[in-house]
């Protein structure tokens, strides 16, 4: 076969699909909920039926749709259309998602894998003939044909190993590819020499199957790594990149990075502030829970500052941008987090640690075998053959194949649960975690206006509360009023009701002054001199209770560290059965708490979503944040939860632990196999047939074992 014209270049032409058709905009939307053929059909048919959509193609594996639209139509139209079709949709940044380098690398490896597989099978057929007794001229002919197939195939397929080994040697290091390359090159060279001199033993099939199995491992590893990278990119792209700019009273949809200092930005209700700014017009409440962890909304009026990441709750605002892009508080936090993350990058995976042990041992063994046999027999050819047999037999299949196979199986199981794994060592670190720190607001709880429960008040107080609550547009009031109406409470007769922004609603009930408003510890109802606290009702995130119980059963310590007021934190902790609670904690104290736990020997899993959690997320051994979290938090965490429920977290811990167990088992299997095979090789009894059998069987056993992770 010909490898003169690199097939890799043929199959992976440079930058395919980079040339966008003029006048057509391709938009990419994430659809986390699609899962079947019916979803694919409904999305594609629904979108292509729209007049401004020219084409739509769903990628079910990545849960995305790529849409081409006519000029003029944009992301908001597509999102609205998908919403009407009943699919949760999140806009993605098509520019960030384009990773042709990764795709090309994967294709390149697949190509080399195919060539190695093809050559391996052909050489194996010829080798079977030799093993079953072909002699003299036939054997020599078969050896020559094998060499003709194997040498070019190895030269092409084993290139990634040879290149990496060369790079390592040039800087004076030894990595796992050095013994691999050595084994492949020596086996080919020695077999060629044997063939030329009419010898009986050729290791062409061993060199090829070694290349083949290790390429499978390399391919899987690359897939895990590029899917981790694309998860990170997907998230960077998740933040809505659009904002409404006001110019001379006209509204204009622009990308957030096009905003400049001094621009007036309209923030409709429900919008997350894209930049830091000062309120120009409008008075309303901002949800700061993502930024500070407080569940209590803050009131802003013209002249007040708004930080990027805060969400507008009840009245549209217009702000004047004071810092944009990388200068916003949000981005600055993200930059701080990068620094904190440094120590996590130093984490050495199990495979790395094993490889560090493995490479020198193999080299020493092979060198010792050569030296020993040379001293004993004085025969260079025999000694070299035995040294090569040792190198081939000790092939690091468990390292090179089993670890990536486990990683692939585990991360695709997690993706099906709705978890994006961003870092390739996250699973191993998750498996080691023995203590869980939860943030409260936005993580264990979600603010759900329709779900408020009335506090334990007597009926008269309830009636007053409802009377005051129903006149206000404050989100807390609206929640209380809704809950009151649902409970069938009649409003009391309260007269002279007035509302002061930021203070509350007050009036008179039978001459008694009553107020619903701010107290030192959250919302309070004042009736005359009496002060009744009105704890804010937060809804537990679905699955929170089950998750806490599950972690408890798994023997992990669970604690709640919240920036919110003690009353609210303790109430949620009681509801969930969490005993250790720290409330009113500032971001730096959260980090200190995690550091203290780590110093006590705990491996901490941090689950949080707010800007006040980012540093803690980065400091923890491993961290998870929900998709609703601010960009900085998602950037700081290893795993992101795409769905609303929390229960996948518990299952993720299970899967991670099982994956770790499989990896260790595979190391054990490999060690046993080496314990048997190395003495055979050292004593000079290893034949090419034995090497081929041992290598294939051990590779297949570790792969089958790895597959059990997903069960």
């Amino acid at each position: 076969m010909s490898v003169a014209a690199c097939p890799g270049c043929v199959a992976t032409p440079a930058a395919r699909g980079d040339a966008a058709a003029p006048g057509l905009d391709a938009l990419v939307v994430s659809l986390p909920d699609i899962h079947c053929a019916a979803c694919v059909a409904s999305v594609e048919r629904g979108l292509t039926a729209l007049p401004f959509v020219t084409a739509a193609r769903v990628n079910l594996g990545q849960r995305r749709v790529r849409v081409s639209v006519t000029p003029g139509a944009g992301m908001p139209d597509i999102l609205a259309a998908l919403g009407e079709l009943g699919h949760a949709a999140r806009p993605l940044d098509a520019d960030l998602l384009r990773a042709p380098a990764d795709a090309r690398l994967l294709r390149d490896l697949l190509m080399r894998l195919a060539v190695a597989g093809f050559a391996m099978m052909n050489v194996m057929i010829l080798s079977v003939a030799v093993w079953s007794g072909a002699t003299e001229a036939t054997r020599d002919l078969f050896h020559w044909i094998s060499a003709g197939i194997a040498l070019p195939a190895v030269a092409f397929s084993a290139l990634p190993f040879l290149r990496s080994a060369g790079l390592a040697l040039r800087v004076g290091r030894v990595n796992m590819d050095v013994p691999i390359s050595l084994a492949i090159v020596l086996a080919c060279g020695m077999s060629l020499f044997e063939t030329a001199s009419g010898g009986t033993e050729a290791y062409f099939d061993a060199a090829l199957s070694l290349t083949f199995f290790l390429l499978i491992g390399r391919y899987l590893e690359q897939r895990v790594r590029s899917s981790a990278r694309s998860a990170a990119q997907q998230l960077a792209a998740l933040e809505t990149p659009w904002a409404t700019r006001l110019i001379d009273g006209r509204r204009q949809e622009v990308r957030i990075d096009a905003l400049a200092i001094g621009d007036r930005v309209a923030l409709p209700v429900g919008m997350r502030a894209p930049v830091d700014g000062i309120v120009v017009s409008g008075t309303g409440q901002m949800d700061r829970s993502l930024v500070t962890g407080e569940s209590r909304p803050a009131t802003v009026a013209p002249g007040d500052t708004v930080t990027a990441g805060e969400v507008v709750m009840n009245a549209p605002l217009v702000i004047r941008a004071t810092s944009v892009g990388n200068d916003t508080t949000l981005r600055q936090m993200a930059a701080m987090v990068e620094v904190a993350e440094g120590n996590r990058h130093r984490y050495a995976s199990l495979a790395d640690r094993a490889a560090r042990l493995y490479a020198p041992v193999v080299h020493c063994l092979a060198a010792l075998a050569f030296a020993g046999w040379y001293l004993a027999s004085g025969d260079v050819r025999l000694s070299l053959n035995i040294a090569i047999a040792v190198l081939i037999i000790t092939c690091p299949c468990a390292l090179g194949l089993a670890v990536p196979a486990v990683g692939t199986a585990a991360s695709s199981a997690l993706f099906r649960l709705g978890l994006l794994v961003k870092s390739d060592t996250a699973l191993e670190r998750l498996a080691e975690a023995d203590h869980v720190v939860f943030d409260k607001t936005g993580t264990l709880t979600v603010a759900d206006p329709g779900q408020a429960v009335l506090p334990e008040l007597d009926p008269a107080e309830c009636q007053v509360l409802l009377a005051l609550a129903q006149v206000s547009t404050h989100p807390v009031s609206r929640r209380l009023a809704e809950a009151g109406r649902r409970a069938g409470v009649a409003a009391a007769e309260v007269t002279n009701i007035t509302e002061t922004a930021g203070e509350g609603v007050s009036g008179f009930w039978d001459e008694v002054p009553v107020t619903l408003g701010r107290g030192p510890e959250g919302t309070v109802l004042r009736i005359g001199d009496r002060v009744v606290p009105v704890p804010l009702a937060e809804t537990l995130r679905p699955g929170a209770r089950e998750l806490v119980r599950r972690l408890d059963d798994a023997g992990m310590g669970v604690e709640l560290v919240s920036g919110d007021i003690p009353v609210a934190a303790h109430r949620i902790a009681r509801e969930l059965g969490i005993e250790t609670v720290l409330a009113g904690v500032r971001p730096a104290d959260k980090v200190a708490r995690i550091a203290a736990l780590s110093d006590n020997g705990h491996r901490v899993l941090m689950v949080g979503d707010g800007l006040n959690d980012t540093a803690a997320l980065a400091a923890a051994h491993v961290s998870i944040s929900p998709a609703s979290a601010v960009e900085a938090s998602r950037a700081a965490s290893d795993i992101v939860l795409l769905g609303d429920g929390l229960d996948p977290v518990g299952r993720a811990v299970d899967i991670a632990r099982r994956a770790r167990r499989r990896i260790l088992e595979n190391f054990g299997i490999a060690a046993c196999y080496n314990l048997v095979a190395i003495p055979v090789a050292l004593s000079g009894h290893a034949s090419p047939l034995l090497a081929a059998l041992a290598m294939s069987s051990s590779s297949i056993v570790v792969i089958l074992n790895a597959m059990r992770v997903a069960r």
Partner: protein
Amino acid sequence: MNVLVILIPVSLILGGLGLAGFFWTLRHDQYEDMEGDAARILLDDDDPPSEPED
């Protein structure tokens, strides 16, 4: 043994055809969305939606 002169080239050519077929599938993006392609077989569209031009 003379039959080998025919058999070996034939086996290599057949295997090579398989390899060429694999290269062809790689070139045509057939491994981009295997889950989606598995699901699409269930759709009975007469004219499938066109690929977005990107």
